[in-house]
């Protein structure tokens, strides 16, 4: 029992289960627990989940990325302007959007590693720079800040397919989570992520390339954010510079609810996945109760506060007993 209490994902799993049961009981006969209802909350969780996994790994390594929001928007606008204003082919434009995301991540990573400034502030700056640049350039080129996307059928299959109510983004989420889990828990690189966040000097002394670890994670985060921009753009047939702004804080929130320590060095992908699923259940569950959706914020705030306290407790527990 004690063994499970100490795992970083236990709290998030319990919270997810309790919340799910709560909404299932509070909304009898509304279809919250139906296939469609389940697809509903999974859809809400999926795209956030795709960024939350790399953001979580980044936080375990001791860094933040608040620029994800603008990267999502920028990627969708690259796809929109590319396929619409320039009439370009879909797949190369998708590749370009992903590369742009990677490039933003690379800039973040190098800036953080070279200046040694807190990534919190560096990526907050990037967030404004990127959204400003996206809007400015879009206006210059097409005099718009949002624009239609003309995606090929094959791209629609891969990024916007639906089974009933379920979006293909759920599969993308699973894929990203699986890769994240493999990397963090099973590879040497994952060991380096924990070490970098746990004690950077010790990690460096042991020969861990901590700068490379961080830059790689920033790049992965940028690419994941661009992937979400592409998913949303193709689903909604349009790009918009402001897509993804909600993720700026939602992603770190679900990561912390998922049991990742704010100070870095501890956490798991399973926890991040449960934290994200919890977000999906609340956002969609509130809707089924018929209450005002404003309550979502309150719920999340309380959960975040609870999670931070619980994480500290779990950390202490992990360090006191065998």
């Amino acid at each position: 029992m004690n063994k499970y209490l100490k795992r970083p994902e236990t709290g998030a799993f319990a919270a997810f289960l309790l919340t799910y049961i709560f909404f299932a009981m509070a909304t009898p006969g509304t279809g919250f627990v139906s296939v469609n209802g389940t697809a509903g909350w999974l859809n809400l969780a999926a795209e956030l989940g795709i960024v939350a996994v790399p953001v979580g790994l980044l936080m375990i390594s001791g860094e933040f990325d608040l620029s994800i929001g603008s990267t999502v928007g920028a990627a969708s606008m690259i796809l929109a302007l590319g396929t619409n204003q320039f009439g370009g082919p879909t797949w190369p434009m998708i590749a370009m959007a992903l590369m742009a995301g990677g490039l933003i991540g690379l800039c973040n990573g190098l800036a953080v590693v070279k200046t040694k400034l807190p990534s919190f502030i560096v990526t907050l700056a990037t967030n404004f720079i990127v959204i400003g640049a996206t809007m400015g350039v879009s206006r210059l080129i097409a005099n718009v800040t949002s624009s239609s996307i003309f995606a090929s059928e094959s791209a629609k299959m891969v990024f916007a397919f639906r089974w009933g109510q379920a979006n293909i983004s759920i599969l993308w989420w699973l894929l990203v989570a699986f890769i994240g889990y493999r990397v963090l828990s099973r590879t040497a690189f994952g060991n380096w992520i924990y070490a970098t966040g746990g004690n950077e000097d010790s990690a460096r002394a042991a020969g861990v390339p901590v700068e490379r670890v961080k830059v790689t994670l920033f790049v992965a985060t940028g690419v994941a954010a661009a992937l979400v921009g592409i998913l949303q753009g193709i689903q909604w047939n349009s790009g918009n510079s402001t897509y993804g702004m909600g993720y700026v804080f939602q992603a770190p929130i679900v990561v912390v609810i998922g049991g990742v320590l704010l100070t870095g060095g501890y956490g798991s992908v399973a926890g991040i996945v449960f934290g994200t699923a919890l977000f999906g259940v609340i956002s969609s569950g509130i809707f089924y109760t018929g209450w005002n959706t404003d309550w979502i914020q309150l719920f999340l705030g309380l959960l975040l506060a609870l999670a931070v306290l619980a994480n500290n407790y779990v950390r202490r527990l992990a360090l006191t007993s065998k």
Partner: protein
Amino acid sequence: MSPLMELRNVDKFFGSTKALKHVSMQVHPGKILCLLGDNGAGKSTLIKVLSGYHNPTNGAVMLEGDETKFAGPRDARQRGIATVHQNVGSIPLMSVGRNFFLGAEPIKGKWPFRSIDTKKANTIAVEQMRKFGLTRVENGDQLVGTMSGGERQVLAIGRAMYFGAKMLILDEPTSALGVKEASMVLKMMRVARQNGVGIVFITHNARHAMSVGDDFCVLIQGEVAASFKRDEKTREEVLNLMAGGEDMTALEEDLEQID
């Protein structure tokens, strides 16, 4: 026997601060060299020169008879010089096995399913610590943060030995430990010595130094004030030297007056 590592007339200046002046010393394989000295005497600076962190301002560093210039701590480590700092070295929220192999993880399987061989890492880590007399840690999955200070020292030293260190530099490994824990670390140093490792042992504790030391080197204000072999000086004399040449009994009288 030729020395493992030797400093010849080494100076290290930081601007106008002369941290080390004309320091010459030798580290022999299978011997423990105790480096003694008061706060600010230059001990940390000296081990930074030995471990490749600093290059000397003047003078030569000889490694197994050849003059050497380390490119950095990593270079020194690859040539078999391992440094264990007092607090740094292990990561509390990671397991024993993962800490032990950090930066040199054993890998199994084929891409894309290559993964850390956690079982192997845990087994070797626990075995290696047992070899050095630490039997209390049986589970390689245990978090390092749950181990005592002495056990962490054993982990760090065992790790350095496993990865083929020829020379160990230990910066005050016993200073934060209780009597039992300190004796465990001292015992471990003896085991390492038997395996032919040369050890540089920095300490403020004359008793610890006298119990394991073969050679002694006392630094005062960056200079070698005395260097001698075991049994050449009494404990009193060593204590006096460590206090910077002042008489220890006089210092003790001072203390009494404060009370």
